[in-house]
């Protein structure tokens, strides 16, 4: 019981933090930075506890007597929670300057953010589809509002409008799918679905497949996979930087946490049907994403569109899981971490720059001569771009490498070849930014490196990316390329059927 309380602490802390900030925001005199710090404090404590849990937990149901077996605590969920929490912390800290430079942020922003994180954490913990749906709704609904938080900008409102309508539309499919699954199985536990499939090998499972497909629609929508990607660019561009950052990194990971769980429960009988669709979706995502990215004229749009491509890679690996690859799951987790770090860094630099009053609308042109103006930041940005492009010696390369490896394992050489081709094309649009930074003279004088929490964190993330790409066991306690993979596979071992 005490252990259970201990396990629930991180979630509880996030929720309490949300309530606290919600009430606290009524007090008008408080400075914004303090809200931020309070949020970070809650999240940090939660993160520390999660880290300890990660060392000790194996496979556990929280309050089994009360919550039945819905609330699962294993290393996978803890790992995901660590990612959400650190993502949120990094987002908040890196955007510290940005918050201060805009007048529309207030306490509720942080409360909503915490609600959203709570939803995501719940999603990682859940073993049951209804809970998953509600968690997704919680994470999304609060995020809708965050997207439209900049009420000075019609774009922000427009992004919110689109996101709400399309997000709700997509959400409906999930619950429809759950309902159909429930209709067939009579339960919404993943484990029950699995045992139903084992025991009813001869009965018709069409409805189950249809339900699964509708669930996939929502999940694919939320991660921005190909035919459902139309919202991504607009919403990313429209939202404030911190929110874009949060969406691009954390939300995506959250959705993948449930996707992984779905795929790791071995639904072998329905795979032949679903996997074909997943494969097509993965291919379409890669192609359309790279096409869109190449056409973007706006920096944020490029990053948004390229995030679609990254989803495509993970879908490839997801397909590989279904086909039976043994290392695809850890490859996805590694890729998530790598993309998480890279995108966080890239958006972080954008928001750092955008917090400068003169550069409200950050475009490609603002990066002309950036390397001469801020060499260190440019170096960091280069590292992020390289990592996103999958250039070796960054974590992004290893991420892609593992993914391709798992795809090759399934024998789909052509699919892997397509992935590599798309990675090749992505070189173009990522290097375009590097070219802008280094190839032009700077219109502004050289600036000193600003020693602030946000910039230091950005540099830290850059170092992590490099370390994740080349790191070995040289430094024992910092997980490098190898260590991260160990963590991922350890986490995967603890999930039960």
């Amino acid at each position, binding site marked *: 019981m005490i252990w259970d309380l201990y396990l629930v602490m991180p979630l509880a802390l996030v929720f309490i933090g949300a309530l606290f900030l919600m009430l606290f925001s009524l007090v008008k005199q408080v400075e914004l930075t303090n809200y931020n710090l309070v949020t970070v404090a809650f999240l940090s404590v939660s993160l520390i506890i999660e880290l300890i849990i990660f060392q000790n937990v194996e496979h556990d149901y929280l309050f089994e007597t009360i919550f039945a077996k819905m609330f699962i605590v294993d290393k996978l969920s803890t790992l995901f929670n660590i990612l959400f929490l650190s993502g949120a912390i990094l987002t908040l800290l890196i955007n510290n300057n940005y918050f201060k430079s805009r007048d529309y942020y207030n306490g509720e922003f942080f409360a909503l953010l915490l609600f959203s994180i709570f939803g995501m954490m719940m999603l990682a913990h859940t073993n049951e589809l*209804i809970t998953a*749906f*509600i968690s997704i*709704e919680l994470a999304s*609904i609060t995020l*809708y*509002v965050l997207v*439209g938080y900049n009420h000075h900008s*019609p*774009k922000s*409102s*427009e*992004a*919110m*409008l*689109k996101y*709400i*309508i399309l997000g*709700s*539309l997509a959400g*409906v499919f999930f*619950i*429809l799918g759950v*309902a*159909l699954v*429930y*209709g067939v199985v*009579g*339960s*919404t536990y993943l484990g029950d679905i699995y045992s139903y499939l084992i025991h009813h090998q001869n009965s018709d499972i069409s409805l189950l497949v249809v339900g699964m497909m509708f669930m996939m629609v929502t999940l694919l929508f939320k991660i921005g996979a190909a035919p459902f990607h139309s919202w991504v*660019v*607009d919403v990313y*561009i*429209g939202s404030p930087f911190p929110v874009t950052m949060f969406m691009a990194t954390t939300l995506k990971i959250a959705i993948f946490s449930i996707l992984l769980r779905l795929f790791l429960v071995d639904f072998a009988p329905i795979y032949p049907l679903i996997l074909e669709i997943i494969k097509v979706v993965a291919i379409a995502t890669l192609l359309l994403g790279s096409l869109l990215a190449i*056409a*973007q*004229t*706006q920096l944020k*749009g490029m990053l948004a569109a390229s995030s679609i491509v990254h989803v495509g890679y993970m879908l490839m690996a997801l397909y590989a899981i279904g086909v039976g690859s043994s290392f695809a799951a850890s490859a996805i987790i590694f890729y998530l971490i790598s993309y998480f770090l890279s995108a966080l860094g890239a958006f972080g630099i954008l928001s750092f720059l955008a917090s400068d009053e003169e550069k409200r609308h950050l475009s490609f042109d603002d990066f002309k001569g950036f390397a001469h103006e801020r060499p260190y930041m440019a170096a960091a940005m280069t590292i992020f771009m390289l990592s996103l492009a999958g250039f070796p010696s960054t974590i992004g390369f290893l991420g892609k490498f593992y993914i391709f490896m798992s795809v090759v394992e399934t024998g789909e050489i052509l699919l892997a070849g397509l992935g590599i081709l798309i990675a090749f094309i992505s070189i173009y649009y990522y290097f375009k930014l590097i070219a802008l930074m280094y190839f032009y003279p700077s219109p502004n004088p050289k600036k000193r490196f600003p020693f602030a929490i946000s910039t230091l964190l950005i540099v830290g993330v850059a170092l992590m990316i490099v370390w994740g790409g080349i790191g070995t066991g040289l430094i024992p306690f910092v997980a490098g390329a190898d260590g991260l993979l160990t963590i991922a596979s350890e986490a995967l071992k603890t999930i039960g059927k």
Partner: protein
Amino acid sequence: MLSPDKFLFVAVMMFAIGLIGLMLRRNLFVVYLSIELMLSSVNLILATFSRMHGEMDGGVVSLLMIAVIAAEAAIFLALIIYIYRITKSVDSQSITQLTHKRDEA
């Protein structure tokens, strides 16, 4: 004699009409109501299956769904009010700055 199929048919029809509404209409109210309609149709499906299995689980989920519908409604209505306030319209296309072609601005 009633069969689940009939209920499910009606639910599917509701769902389809909701989808049509989403594709057809620009009026935010209609969009909102269409989504509510779809959610409700799922609710009906859940209730039907609950009755079919003879277990209360589906019903409970329906109940939870009603709450979710309410939450959606809250956020949607707030959005409608907000959009109406800034554009004096409930047209979903009243702000379209985020198109590809206008990105350069």
